[in-house]
């Protein structure tokens, strides 16, 4: 006896929308069972994990802060993933964006330059991410090199470049030899009391909106979608595959780079090693959780941000280990992928014998 996946043919849009919701529900159920096995109350865990963060003002602010980089990166990635291009290197593009964007305030440190430094830095960040993503794109177009490997390996190059710069040439001379730059003269303003919610969070929904417009309302967006679903049809329709690869990677890289510099200008206010706790990789989960749709990805980013904040809450209130949060994030991604597969395919049991 074995199992076979048979395509379902037409899938109702309702099922498509409901599948990630069902996936989240299934993940919560599995998480609850794990908590119960650990001898704790799953109901209290649910309360601490998912309900409390959503009912308190500070937690909602933190949710927005955490979701911002995830959403911006995921929106960019969706262009690649839609076109069946596997950009795994958003983490590296994030770091390079933070780096090139920071060049502006670092070069002008102490010069008394105005707040335009921020705007210039944001542009430089997006541009840096774009150029960095261009490397795997060009390698694929010119030599047919797998973009999965090159984009992933470039993450390490980016991390080590940042390491080198903050330990060497860019190190704060008054910083006791600690690996970090000076604190920037200009940072993104706070837009709520408590000095946490920075103006950068406004950028994320704008990026998502722009992505929706490009994807749904422009010929280019149509080309990306067709290229992903049927490369032959795309070629027949006159879309250049190479140009699609380059464009998708450029958008993806620019978004990741922008996310990087927004995070630095909004939250960290200086460069140091470890500016990203893995946003570039977590955003892959967000992209698929949101079914590569901008509105869906807003939902996905918030859910993932919730697991981080709820997980912290669970550590404080219930002394549940951090590993549980990690396990839960993994379970969530598995459930989303499984739900996706089950919506598009039917499982058929094939009887024994041949």
């Amino acid at each position, binding site marked *: 006896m074995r199992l076979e996946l048979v395509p379902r043919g037409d899938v109702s849009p309702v099922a498509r929308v409901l599948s990630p919701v069902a996936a989240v529900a299934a993940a919560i159920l599995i998480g609850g069972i794990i908590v119960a096995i650990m001898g704790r109350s799953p109901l209290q865990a649910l309360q601490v994990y998912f309900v409390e963060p959503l009912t308190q003002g500070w937690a909602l602010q933190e949710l927005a802060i955490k979701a911002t980089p995830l959403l911006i990166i995921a929106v960019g990635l969706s262009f690649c993933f839609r076109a069946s291009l596997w950009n795994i290197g958003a983490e590296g593009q994030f770091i390079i964006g933070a780096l090139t964007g920071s060049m502006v305030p670092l070069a002008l440190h102490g010069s008394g330059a105005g707040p335009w430094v921020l705007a210039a830095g944001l542009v430089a960040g997006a541009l840096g991410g774009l150029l960095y993503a261009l490397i795997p794109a060009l390698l694929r177009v010119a030599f047919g090199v797998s973009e999965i490997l090159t984009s992933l390996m470039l993450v390490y190059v980016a991390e080590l470049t940042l390491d080198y710069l903050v*330990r060497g040439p860019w190190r704060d001379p008054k910083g*006791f030899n600690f690996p970090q730059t000076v604190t920037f003269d200009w940072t993104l303003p706070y837009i709520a009391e408590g000095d946490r919610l920075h103006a950068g969070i406004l950028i994320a929904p704008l990026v998502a909106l722009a992505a929706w417009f490009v994807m749904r309302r422009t010929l280019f967006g149509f080309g990306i979608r067709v290229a992903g679903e049927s490369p032959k049809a795309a070629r027949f329709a006159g879309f250049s595959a190479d140009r699609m690869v380059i464009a998708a990677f450029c958008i993806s890289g620019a978004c990741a780079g922008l996310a990087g510099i927004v995070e630095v200008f909004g*939250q*960290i206010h200086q460069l*140091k090693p470890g500016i990203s706790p893995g946003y570039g990789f977590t955003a892959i989960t967000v992209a698929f959780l949101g079914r590569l749709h901008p509105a869906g990805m807003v939902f996905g980013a918030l859910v993932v941000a919730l697991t981080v904040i709820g997980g912290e809450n669970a550590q404080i209130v219930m002394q549940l280990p*951090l590993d549980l949060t990690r396990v839960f994030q993994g379970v969530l991604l598995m459930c989303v992928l499984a739900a996706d597969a089950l919506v598009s395919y039917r499982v058929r049991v094939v009887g024994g014998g041949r």
Partner: protein
Amino acid sequence: MRQMFKAAAAAALAAGLGAAAAGSASAQEKMKVGFIYVGPVGDFGYSYQHNQGRLAVEKALGDKVTTTFLENVPEADSERSIEQLARTGHKLIFTTSFGFMDPTVKVAKKYPNVYFEHATGYKREKNLATYSAKFHEGRYVIGQIAGKMTKSNVIGYVASFPIPEVVSGINAFMLGAQSVNPNIKVKIVWANTWFDPGKEADAAKALLDQGADIISQHTDSPAPLQQAEARGKFAFGQASDMIRFAQKATLTSIVDNWNDYYIARVKAALDGSWKSEDTWGGFDANMVNMAPFTNMPDEVKAMATKTTADIKSGALNPFKCPVYGQDGKEIECKGKGALSDEQVLGMAFYVKGIDDQLPK
């Protein structure tokens, strides 16, 4: 509409009464103490040892305080975690890694009624104290042991980040080694991490391949020790007594002991005598200890025991003058007969004989 307001007002009143009742009970409530760790409590090194301190607080003062910890907190993303502890009613919060410095300062300014303590940093506020241990005292002792025990005269050193704490540790190690063996060489690999068993093991392997027969480490996992054990070489444990991970290879471990300090500070917070200050203790304050000296001849054991006692009594300072820099020139002596505390806490140079370049 009016009905709704009434209901809402009644609910608010009830909630208020409830809160008031809770308030009167809270006089008896235990004080909450929070800890933020950079690694997992299961690193069996640095964060593990801080957690031992937390458990000691629970044991000693469990009737008066409850403790909470957050582990594996990324340094650049720590502000929210620290604030969450402050917000959830923690009265005293220890942030235990250098990278938590600026976030701790920021949160401390926002919560003037909460006491903060930051380990290994240099920024203080009215409600933010700093503390650290003179780890370099232990490094001097293990340097001497290494100097006596090596046959190849090459020591491998798995280092984390070139910050003063680590650089002064390397220098103290070298000065200790040179005091008994002038021909010694120290090779350094920067693992660029506090805790990553894979990277730490790779660094140790590379050093062993280059002829090192003793491994010293300033990273937090037992992986380098295990590599040394597998090759039949020697190594030193970091932060906690790591002998159970490498029975034959472990010569000793430098053990961080935060227990007494944490208990004293929590007591101070309880009785209201807490003040923002800088604490920097070594053998004398019992903040740094040596694990038992093992796998070495009795004469080496005796030497290490004597050196430890001399440092503890103040008869010996690992950075006693003259200290020579890498270029052979004497370092200006700003303390009494030894480098000053400031010189050690901001150390950004290597002593003579170290075959490595600090990033400039």
